[in-house]
């Protein structure tokens, strides 16, 4: 990036000048370099560590598959199962909760949709664990919900915190915007005229939804569903703060393997499996989606 070479003004474009004329790759270069160093690099290292013998801190050992075997033998698949189960439950609830709101924001609310967007986005700017801590205060024995019910009806609901439903609540709460916003984009991509045409051709309200709205808003639904699913799958704070030790999710296991157990290869194997699972889903998603159309509304 040494500026425009004045001498070669009339010469055929070569070297730096050729780069200048292709601003796309030039602009992509710094970010790509950064992500290579900060994203691709760590992933390769994690992969490398997963083949090292347990409890080693160096990468100069003979590769082994021992860690992969221990995932089965040490029943780590249980935490995988819990993560998959909780994430699936959360995503299904999120879809049911968000679809009517997204429909309203895309089609009914008009200018008010901007306000809803702002109100939903604002909590994202506050640390996730502060917001989850707020739920602890609500669900706690003698907390806000329990205290209010005792005062008003004399009923006590003390066993709410540190349960599986509390974790699901936390997941639904934290990842709601990640489901809602893609849904809004997806639904607003369905032209009103198509629905009117379907109605004109005799389709019922439900048939319009099934035949027109659902398939055409599918890109948004896919992105929202997969984004919230993957984030929930790898979540850590929800199960720790709201779940106590009721359920161990996979990220929990990974964290303790790295920190408490000081077993980097074990943690790496679990990470690799989680990454592979998420990565597979994302690749499948990206193959069917045109980002220009969704983000740029082209």
């Amino acid at each position, binding site marked *: 990036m040494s500026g425009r070479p004045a001498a070669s*003004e*009339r*010469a055929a*474009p070569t070297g730096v000048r050729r780069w200048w004329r292709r601003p796309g790759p030039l602009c992509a270069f710094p970010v790509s370099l950064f992500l290579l160093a900060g994203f691709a690099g760590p992933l390769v290292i994690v992969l490398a560590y997963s083949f090292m013998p347990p409890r080693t801190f160096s990468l100069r050992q003979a590769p082994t598959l021992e860690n992969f075997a221990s995932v089965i033998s040490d029943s780590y698949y249980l935490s995988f199962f819990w993560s998959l189960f909780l994430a699936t439950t959360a995503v299904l609830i999120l879809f049911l909760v968000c679809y009517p709101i997204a429909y309203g924001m895309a089609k009914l609310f008009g200018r008010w949709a901007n306000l809803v967007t702002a109100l939903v986005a604002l909590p994202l700017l506050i640390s996730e664990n502060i917001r989850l801590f707020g739920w602890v205060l609500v669900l706690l024995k003698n907390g806000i919900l329990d205290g209010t019910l005792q005062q008003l009806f004399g009923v006590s609901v003390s066993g709410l915190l540190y349960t599986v439903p509390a974790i699901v609540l936390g997941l639904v709460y934290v990842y709601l915007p990640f489901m809602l916003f893609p849904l809004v984009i997806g639904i607003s991509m369905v032209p009103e005229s198509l629905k009117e045409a379907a109605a004109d051709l005799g389709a019922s309200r439900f048939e319009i939804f099934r035949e027109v709205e659902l398939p055409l808003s599918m890109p948004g639904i896919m992105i929202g569903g997969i984004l919230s699913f993957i984030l929930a799958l790898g979540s850590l704070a929800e199960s720790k703060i709201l779940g106590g030790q009721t359920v161990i999710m996979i990220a929990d296991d990974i964290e303790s393997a790295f920190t408490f157990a000081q077993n980097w290869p074990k943690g790496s194997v679990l990470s690799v499996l989680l990454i592979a699972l998420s990565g597979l889903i994302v690749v499948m998603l990206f193959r069917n989606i045109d980002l220009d159309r969704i983000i740029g509304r082209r």
Partner: protein
Amino acid sequence: MEDAREALLVLDGLTKAFGDFVAVRDVRLDIRESEFFTLVGPSGSGKTTMIRMLVGMEQPTSGEIRLNGRVLNQVPANRRPTCMVFQDLALFPHKSVGENIEFPLKIAGVAPRVRRERASALLRQLRLPVDYYDKGVNQCSGGERQRIALARALAFDPQILFFDEPLAALDFRLRKTLEKELKDIHRETGKTFVYITHSLEEAMVMSDRIGIMKNGGLVQIGTPHEIYNRPVNKFVAQFMGEVNTLEVEAAGAHAVREVQGEGTFEVRDMPEHFTRGFLIIRPEVMKLGPAAAGAANTVSGRLFNDYALGSRVQYQVRSAGGAQWLVERLQDDPFEGASDGEVTLGWRPEDSILVSE
């Protein structure tokens, strides 16, 4: 005289290829000082690529662009003494009308006070109120925005001003008004204008000369009069509007025979070595009914339908051989015949145009 002018811009074998696709093919053209030259072609004819090469947004694959004898090929757009009025005008939305007009002066480092005077002068010249200086460009109407874009280009004081179909998006009436205004501005400033459009009609109104493009090449260059009266081929003739086109072959020194058997027709001028080609007759020179009596060329058929075209009425006649003929008459001189009735149509030999392709 016009031809005595020295060529200002010379295109010498200009070619542009994108991979295997050749967008502009070996174009040779001289554009003279102070003329209004228009390139006309349907979409995909290469005229946009052509103008983008002329302003410096694209590099020619081969050939030369010479301005006053200087080769411009490698000179980037910001160092060329030419500029363009864009199709969507490209007015800067974050700048006021005045700031938009002043932009090239600001870039050239002209002092603010001088810039402002020049911008005000341009506002006056383009018949825009001077207090528009502080107005937002998005608050202006379509016609006003058009004038602002032109003022901004004139502020640059280019040797050649290029136009990339700036009127295409406007409605019919406004377009007609602005076409004339543009021609007036051309006369007032004496600058060289190079304009591209897909409408030959628009080109006819404004241009000194017209170049017709097809599939990346120049098909014909000439004055509006020449293009209208002596099209070199079927494409140019049909580009102007609806015409009657018959496939014919030579049948004597002054006659051609329609290949489907519609008849043999007299023509006045036969091109040299003409064996087979097209006979073109404009609908407005066709006579219909009693008016056709005594014409050298006649065809009979049934009047099938009529269409009101505003100032004219168009009649469709289907002849016995199955061909469809178009005849146009002025709206205040309609044809008084029953629909679906038998009619005769005719034309003079000197009104027929013969082209080989």
